[in-house]
């Protein structure tokens, strides 16, 4: 069952209020997304930890109703 991009964005922002989230619907099918997430919460975290934080925010939907979500995460550029 596909998920709307706006729902993905909302869940991430609920967990990381300062996050800048950009979601691309890669195939226009509402099922294959790329999420680019920038948040100060990622400072000092490894890539694995950053992705785990996003998965956590999605509350188990990843791998379930959300089939394909490519992730790019980063901390805000300093300055």
């Amino acid at each position: 069952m596909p998920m709307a991009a706006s729902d993905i964005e909302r869940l991430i922002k609920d967990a990381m209020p300062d996050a800048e989230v950009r979601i691309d619907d890669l195939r226009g099918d509402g099922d294959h997304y790329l999420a680019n997430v920038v948040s100060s919460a990622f400072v000092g975290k490894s890539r694995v930890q950053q992705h785990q934080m996003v998965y956590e925010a999605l509350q188990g939907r990843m791998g379930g109703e959300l089939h394909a979500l490519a992730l790019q995460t980063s901390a805000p550029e300093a300055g």
Partner: protein
Amino acid sequence: MSDTVNERIKTDIDQNEVMLFMKGTPVFPQCGFSAAVVQILNHVGVKFGSADVLVDPEIRDGIKAYTNWPTVPQLYVKGEFVGGCDIIREMFEAGELEQMLDEKGIAREAA
């Protein structure tokens, strides 16, 4: 998750310096993300063990709990979880994957 599944996963990871849990096999991947990781590993010239989670639902669920990571593929090097498809691809593009493999003393053959 039963202890046996955990044990099997641990044995796989312990016995293969580079271990990939994937959908399908390296020769016939059944998912684009798994295929991408296989391609990268072949390109950097490492030998790797693999497990096909599609033929084993216990491992498929078990591996997600094992590392608290909801998706497959998952790559482990010397017992340590390195990442899924996005992270492997990012590391490869930045040259960090080869660097990490070399630092961990994993043999590589020129592709």
